[in-house]
């Protein structure tokens, strides 16, 4: 790799890595995160939370409040006690009903953090319990009164392609499969926090966040539209992974109301336990397939049923479900398709945005399903998958056109050669001894930009401001949260303008300065926001007048060929797709059930990388988080209560758990992306779990239909299988041909 350079001079490849502008302060410890901020007169807030999954609050008893301490609750909200999101069901503070353990009821606010926490711990809330819905099974059984609407369903959709009943009649074979996944916790290193500062007629909220304008709208709704000038400023954000897409809106609204009530700045920072117990998680899922094969064993039709657990409030669930549904048939050509999806409400911590946004659940399921079909037919999964993979000119599951070149076949073939996949696939099935190897493959895509009509609805707007000194300020609402926006966007502008990188300035967004370029989500920042910046920069270049102040704005509209029918889910669900292939080799110790990941090979088509090293960061980070999802990360909610409340209870992989990763990207430019770029942030996580699960499945010779694949699950499956088939090839404790770990 080339040494980092600080300037990208014209003619340099934009992909050449540069030093990250945010790196030095983060490494030196001088970056100021929200909890490092203190302003004169600042008060501290501590949340009193529901301890019941579903109940009516019968009384709130406060301990004596010393001078300067006060509480903030629903009735203090001057505006509406609803967080502005897609729907209108989620309150900033519970009113008379609580719907999940950890739901905020009130804030205790005061001048000293410790005393505030002490008082908060002495607030007594009395409840009258109501029949709760504690799981998807409860929700399906429908015994308790609905939590949302009449059917307890946050969203339900279905879409069709072709004629599935006809495919069912014509089919030679039918294959059924079912898969499930659990909650996943983001575990960003910096817990959530906001600081609300009131000034005459103005209210500024600083916070760790992904989406300043979501927060702005939420705060405006809380404090009353038009009554205060609301300004949102993103502070240095220590990781987010989607977890700071939705929840900062709630915290900012609460802190804003507290700041208005007291007339003083109020800081609200969650501790780790609160953050794990109360903020949004990845949706648990159950996905069932009924697939029909024709006389050539080809995919003829597929009926997919997706069930997501949305927790207590709708949040972003409806769009998460849509993304899961548009990934349900994977990267495959399925002529006759029916996809049905529901998100049910339960009295659990709300589910929300998490890197991949419904796609990781769907890709785990569809990739395992295709793997299982291939194995059942006695075919090589690679061959079978590629045989059905979408090609340029094909129609997607929603009948959109695949416009760009699909380089999956060469990516997969090259990767499988590097990994020795075909030979290992054949050899490992007949493994012997204590340590068993397995190899798994997954193909995936990720739709770049918002799902469906999202980009058209939000119409992201960006601005470039050229100063008199000829430096150029990027004014976008896109946030740096570790993913590299502050590295990539300035490069796009510098390369477009043909000026040195150090002439470009890009501060953390402040809604008084930047237009609403949309949230920092959905792998849209480089492709959509970066694309607008490139257009604006080219325009600026054309009109460039040295020494003059110039301002340029651009607003996003889909390229004219993109069509989408939101009512029937027909057309181009995404403007473009990024593609990925993962191959994972594992070794499973049959004595202990321990899975050792030997190596991961990955290839991605992100159009064109805007910075090789930043892309590497996304690839290795996405793979690490995907590995955690596949093997370790288990967040269980019993009787409505999150059981793993600390970092030590929630196992994410460490550096020592990371296998060697051989990853790379292919160049496949997208016409409407800046310098050909597509999205890269989520894609890298999406395909990991199915490749790991397929590898483990092969190694242990037992089906893997849920993640995480834990040692106890492996031991149990091997055991059950032994009892079912006494002459199984898996040895009871160890076999004569087993070898020691040191030999491997």
């Amino acid at each position: 790799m080339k040494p980092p350079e600080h300037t990208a001079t014209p003619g340099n490849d934009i992909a050449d890595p540069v030093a990250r502008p945010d790196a030095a302060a983060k490494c030196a410890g001088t970056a100021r995160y929200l909890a490092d901020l203190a302003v004169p007169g600042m008060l501290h807030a501590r949340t009193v939370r529901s301890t019941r999954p579903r109940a009516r609050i019968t009384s709130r008893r406060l301990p004596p409040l010393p001078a300067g301490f006060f509480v903030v609750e629903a009735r203090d909200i001057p505006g509406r006690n609803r967080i502005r999101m897609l729907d209108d069901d989620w309150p900033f503070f519970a009113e008379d009903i609580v719907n999940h353990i950890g739901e905020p009821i009130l804030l205790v606010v005061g001048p000293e953090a410790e005393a505030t926490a002490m008082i908060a711990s002495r607030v007594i809330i009395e409840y009258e319990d109501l029949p709760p819905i504690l799981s998807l099974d409860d929700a399906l059984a429908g015994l308790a009164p609905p939590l949302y609407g009449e059917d307890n369903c946050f969203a339900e959709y279905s879409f069709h392609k072709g004629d599935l009943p006809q495919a069912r009649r014509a089919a030679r074979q039918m294959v059924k499969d079912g898969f499930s996944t659990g909650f996943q916790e983001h575990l960003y290193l910096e817990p959530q926090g906001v600081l609300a500062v009131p000034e005459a007629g103005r209210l500024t909220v600083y916070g760790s966040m992904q989406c300043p304008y979501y927060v702005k709208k939420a705060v405006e709704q809380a404090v009353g539209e038009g009554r205060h000038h609301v300004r949102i400023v993103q502070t240095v954000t220590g990781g987010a992974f989607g977890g700071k897409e939705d929840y900062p809106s709630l915290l900012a609204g609460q802190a804003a109301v507290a700041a208005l009530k007291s007339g003083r700045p109020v800081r609200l920072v969650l501790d780790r336990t609160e953050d794990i117990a109360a903020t949004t998680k990845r949706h648990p899922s159950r996905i069932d397939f009924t697939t029909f094969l024709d006389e050539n064993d080809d995919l003829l039709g597929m009926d997919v049923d997706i069930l997501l657990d949305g927790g207590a409030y709708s949040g972003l669930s409806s769009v998460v479900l849509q993304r899961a549904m548009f990934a349900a048939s994977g990267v495959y050509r399925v002529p006759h398709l029916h996809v049905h999806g529901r998100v049910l409400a339960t009295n659990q911590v709300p589910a929300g945005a998490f890197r991949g946004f419904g796609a990781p659940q769907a890709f785990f399921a569809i990739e395992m399903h295709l793997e299982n079909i291939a194995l059942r037919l006695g075919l090589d999964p690679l061959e079978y998958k590629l045989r059905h993979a979408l090609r340029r000119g094909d129609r997607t599951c929603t009948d959109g056109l695949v416009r760009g070149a699909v380089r999956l076949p060469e990516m997969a073939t090259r990767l499988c050669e590097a990994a020795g996949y075909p030979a290992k696939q054949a050899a490992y099935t007949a493994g012997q001894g204590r340590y068993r190897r397995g190899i798994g493959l997954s193909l995936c895509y990720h739709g770049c930009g918002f799902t469906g009509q999202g980009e058209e609805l939000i119409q992201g707007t960006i601005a470039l401001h050229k100063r008199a000194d000829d430096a150029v300020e990027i004014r976008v609402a896109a946030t740096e949260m570790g993913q590299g926006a502050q590295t990539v966007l300035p490069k796009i502008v510098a390369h477009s303008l043909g000026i040195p990188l150090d002439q470009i300035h890009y501060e953390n967004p402040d809604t008084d300065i930047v237009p609403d370029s949309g949230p920092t989500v959905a792998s849209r920042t480089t492709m959509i926001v970066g694309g607008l910046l490139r257009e604006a920069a080219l325009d600026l270049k054309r009109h460039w007048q040295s020494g003059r102040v110039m301002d340029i704005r651009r607003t996003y509209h889909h390229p004219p060929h993109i069509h989408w029918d939101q009512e029937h889910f027909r057309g181009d669900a995404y403007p473009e797709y990024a593609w990925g292939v993962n191959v994972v080799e594992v070794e499973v110790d049959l004595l202990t059930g321990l899975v050792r990941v030997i190596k991961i090979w990955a290839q991605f088509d992100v159009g064109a990388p805007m910075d090789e090293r930043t892309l590497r960061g996304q690839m290795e980070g996405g793979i690490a988080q995907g590995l955690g999802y596949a093997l370790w990360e288990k967040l269980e909610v019993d009787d409505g209560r999150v059981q793993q409340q600390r970092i030590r209870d929630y196992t994410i992989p460490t550096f020592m758990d990371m296998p060697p990763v051989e990853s790379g990207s292919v160049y496949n430019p997208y016409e409407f992306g800046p310098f050909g770029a597509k999205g890269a942030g989520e894609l890298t996580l999406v395909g990991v779990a199915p490749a790991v699960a397929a590898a483990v499945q092969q190694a242990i010779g037992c089906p893997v239909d849920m993640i995480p694949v834990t040692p106890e699950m492996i031991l149990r499956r091997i055991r059950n299988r032994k009892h079912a088939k006494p002459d199984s090839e898996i040895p009871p404790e160890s076999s004569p041909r087993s070898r020691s770990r040191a030999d491997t």
Partner: protein
Amino acid sequence: MNHFEYLQPTDLAEASRLLGDGPDEAMIFAGGTDMLSLLKDDVVAPRKLINIKGIPGLDDIRYTPGNGLVLGPLVTIRAIKENPTIREHYPVLAEAADVLASPQLRNLGTLGGNLCQRPRCWYFRGDFDCLRKGGATCYALEGRNKYHCIIGGHPCVIVHPSDMAVALLALDAKVTIYTPEETRQIPLNEFFVRPAEDYEREHVLKPGEIMSRIEVPAPPSGMLSGYRKFMERAVWDFAVVSVAAVFTRSGDRITGGRVSFGGVAPVPWQDEAFNRKLSGLRLTKRSVTDACKTLLSGAEPLSENAFKLPLARNLTGSLLLELAGVPL
């Protein structure tokens, strides 16, 4: 976290006096790797912390051939891990230190603290008013109990988290306890308290008592020993199950020894019946595997941790055979 007074005595008598009436009044602070998180999580709230690191002579490692090993309670885990004498004569101890926590924690954590650390049960450490914290319920019995005990539990089903204790137990170590009146020595297996005796404490130290020394007998010639710890991650994890084995052999038979377990019981555990059978056991794959089938036969796994039984048996069998050089 509560406010506390921080005191730094320079001898055991003073430390003992400062400890006063028990943990509500004062607690010992050494490496702090466990104490700080207990304080931060409000699991404990002593009025005073007694830092004993200023007391001289508590961090010695002394080995005398024929007499064995004497360890001070302030010896760090890293010091044990890196001590060539311990690596040579007591591999089991060094191996337990090797896989303990992380380098940062090993630098700070002390042997005494490791033996006296509190359980890792997520209900005990979390926001649950559990039996061990004075509540009425052991939440793990009906709750998430994958990491809990399979034997010797009830009414509280924690596991003891120490790696060093398991290794020392297999080595038949003894603990010296300083009290203002006299200094007494007890076998390590009498140091730990089972929940059936008292579910609010894990060891026998009474108010004012301080562990002052750990003694390990001299290794018999030809002693074989080793430690195997099953962790889900490669590092920085407590044992799901761990096993320490110490034995001597003559030809293809074990002539005496001891096996002990971590992660299976509320105290570092020994299966007495199995240990009695060790002497005379043939070191062949078949007889070792057969013998291991009866290990922990009194186990009563909870709803989520039945896997620990085969795990413990499998780990023991493979460890004995590996140490004996018998191909697996």
